[in-house]
């Protein structure tokens, strides 16, 4: 990607060197908080306006965003190409189900509290990511990309073979409810009413996902701007230099792979919650944990701008969100044929739009949406209003 995308934003700690000094509530800070407030409102209010279908699209986007953040850390920041996300999603989802549900005939379950199961899933995927170190710290570039593809096949195979854990391809196994201190996220009943507003299941799932995404985002952003991020970018650019400066390259490579795996594992848990079902795929080319999904994640982080955490979310909105949104807007439309051998059905149309969107992004903004955002910000900063609001001294 273009140079710009690969640059981390200047580290937060360095702000003091840019002369903003004082630290009081200057206009820039106010502006920043204002922007955050607007985003928070935009993200948190949809449950009150949108229908369940649309909320599901939103939830799905957030799953993609969490996974994509993990991948952008690994691929964008640390330069390790990985297609193994579906594998870790699958493992995360499976672990959550195994830990969180009761033992049943033909199905292993530990019946742990669901929150514990959630963290267990993250821990297990992180550990597995670490266990892949012999490959992830030795193999590089495209070779690593295809090597990680092996894991997708392993997931497919294990999902089929190990049905006591996965539930088998035929039926899968239901997701345990996420019980957040008495709040049943996934159960249809009871509906909770707060301040006269009904919180249906889709509302609850949406808000819980938003919370997870927020935490995932903040952690990643902090790491990127801080010490780990510097090490990642350093090994991406020159391993020997990084190592001569005191970075344990093998360890950092293994660690970032594990972190990325944990993100994927979390996305896997969310996936299971979204479907309320864990179901291994029947084939490697179609399904929830398939190669198509691996490529979709790659597309997200590239569209978003390699290495950019915010961009990963934007990329997820496009890649995971667009098809759903199109389905809902044009799904039953008469404009498209639904019969006949060669009809352009909404599904095909959606694929065209998706493909075209990818091409357009690369052609017109090779730095991804993150670069576009930066550019808009720069343009805004040059306007009268922008310069007053954004100038560090608020002058």
């Amino acid at each position, binding site marked *: 990607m273009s140079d710009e995308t690969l640059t981390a934003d200047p580290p937060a700690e360095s702000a003091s*060197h840019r002369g903003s000094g004082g630290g009081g509530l200057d206009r820039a800070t106010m502006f920043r908080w204002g922007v955050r407030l607007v985003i928070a409102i935009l993200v948190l209010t949809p449950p009150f306006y949108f229908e369940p279908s649309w909320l599901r699209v939103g939830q799905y986007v957030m799953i993609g965003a969490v996974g994509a953040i993990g991948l952008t850390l690994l691929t964008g920041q640390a330069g390790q190409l990985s297609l193994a996300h579906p594998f870790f999603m699958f493992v995360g989802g499976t672990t959550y189900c195994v830990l969180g549900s009761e033992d049943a005939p033909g199905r292993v379950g530990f019946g742990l509290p669901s929150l514990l199961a959630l963290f267990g899933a993250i821990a297990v995927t992180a550990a597995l990511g670490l266990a892949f170190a012999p490959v992830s710290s030795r193999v590089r570039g495209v070779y690593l990309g295809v090597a990680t593809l092996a894991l997708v096949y392993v997931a497919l195979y294990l999902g089929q073979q190990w049905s006591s854990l996965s539930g088998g391809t035929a039926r899968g196994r239901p997701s345990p409810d996420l019980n957040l201190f008495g709040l049943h996220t996934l159960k249809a009943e009871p509906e909770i009413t707060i301040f006269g507003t009904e919180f249906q299941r889709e509302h609850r799932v949406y808000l819980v996902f938003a919370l997870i995404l927020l935490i995932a985002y903040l952690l990643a952003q902090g790491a990127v701007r801080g*010490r780990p991020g510097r*090490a990642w970018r350093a090994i991406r650019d020159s391993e020997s230099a990084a190592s001569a400066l005191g970075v344990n390259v093998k360890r950092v490579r293994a660690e970032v792979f594990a972190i990325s795996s944990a993100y994927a594992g979390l996305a896997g848990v969310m996936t299971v919650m979204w479907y309320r079902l864990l179901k291994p795929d029947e084939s490697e080319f179609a399904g929830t944990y398939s190669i198509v999904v691996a490529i979709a994640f790659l597309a997200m982080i590239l569209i978003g701008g390699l290495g950019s955490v915010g961009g990963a979310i934007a990329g997820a909105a496009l890649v995971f969100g667009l098809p759903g949104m199109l389905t809902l807007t044009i799904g039953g439309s008469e404009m498209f044929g639904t019969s006949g051998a060669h009809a352009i059905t909404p599904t095909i149309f959606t694929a065209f739009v998706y493909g075209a969107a990818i091409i357009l992004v690369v052609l017109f903004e090779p730095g991804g949406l993150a670069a576009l955002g930066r550019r808009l910000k720069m343009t805004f900063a040059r306007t009268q209003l922008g310069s007053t609001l954004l100038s560090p001294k608020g002058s």
Partner: protein
Amino acid sequence: MATSALAVENVALSFGGVKALDQVSFSVAPGTIHALIGPNGAGKSTCFNVISGVYRADSGVVRVNGNDVTGLRPHQLATRGLGRSFQNLALSMHSTVLDNVMLARHSRTRGGFLASGVRWPAMVAEQRKHTARAVEICEFLGIERLLHAPVGGLSYGDAKRVDIARALATEPEVLLLDEPAAGMNAGETAEVAELIKVVREALDISILLVEHDMTLVMGVADRITVLDFGKVVADGTPAEVRNDPEVIRAYLGEQD
């Protein structure tokens, strides 16, 4: 005799048929500037690579402050007070200058994914302290204006300064500089020479220097070792080396 800051003893390394280093021995006395010179391909950078753990020598021993460090990995050496710059600028071209320099503080600071992620206050405070130091070093090298510029857009000479700043930022006891003045004109080279001296004085460290600019070498070095075809062919004070006929023949050429 005080233990030397850095000692290379009978180090040999060959690549295929090429003997890049052939029983090389020399030592750097504490607090001195020691130059390593020799024709192109003589094995100077290879020697640096062996000292800093990038290459593993076929035989021989490397000591830092008297301790045997042979075979340690580069990052282990970095934490033992060995800092180095690179002949061909191994910088992160897409990162900012400050980012590049801060990397050198990696092993001196704590803070993994979670601590950085939640911006653990103790960690943030520590990072701030180290950032201030990184900025101080950049000011010292005269690149403070470029702190937030991506390295990729710098001119060659400025990039070279970033590389030196980064080596300094590891807070080394022994500093290895590989051609720090390459790509600089006479005035800038004099500036670098001055900086090297200041560094030695202010930080009280030992410096091993590879450089082809004789004005610089002769001006700053306390002692010089000359390599040719992987062998030490001369070792002495600048004055001795300058007049060594073997050195003139192999390296300096007929000066006018």
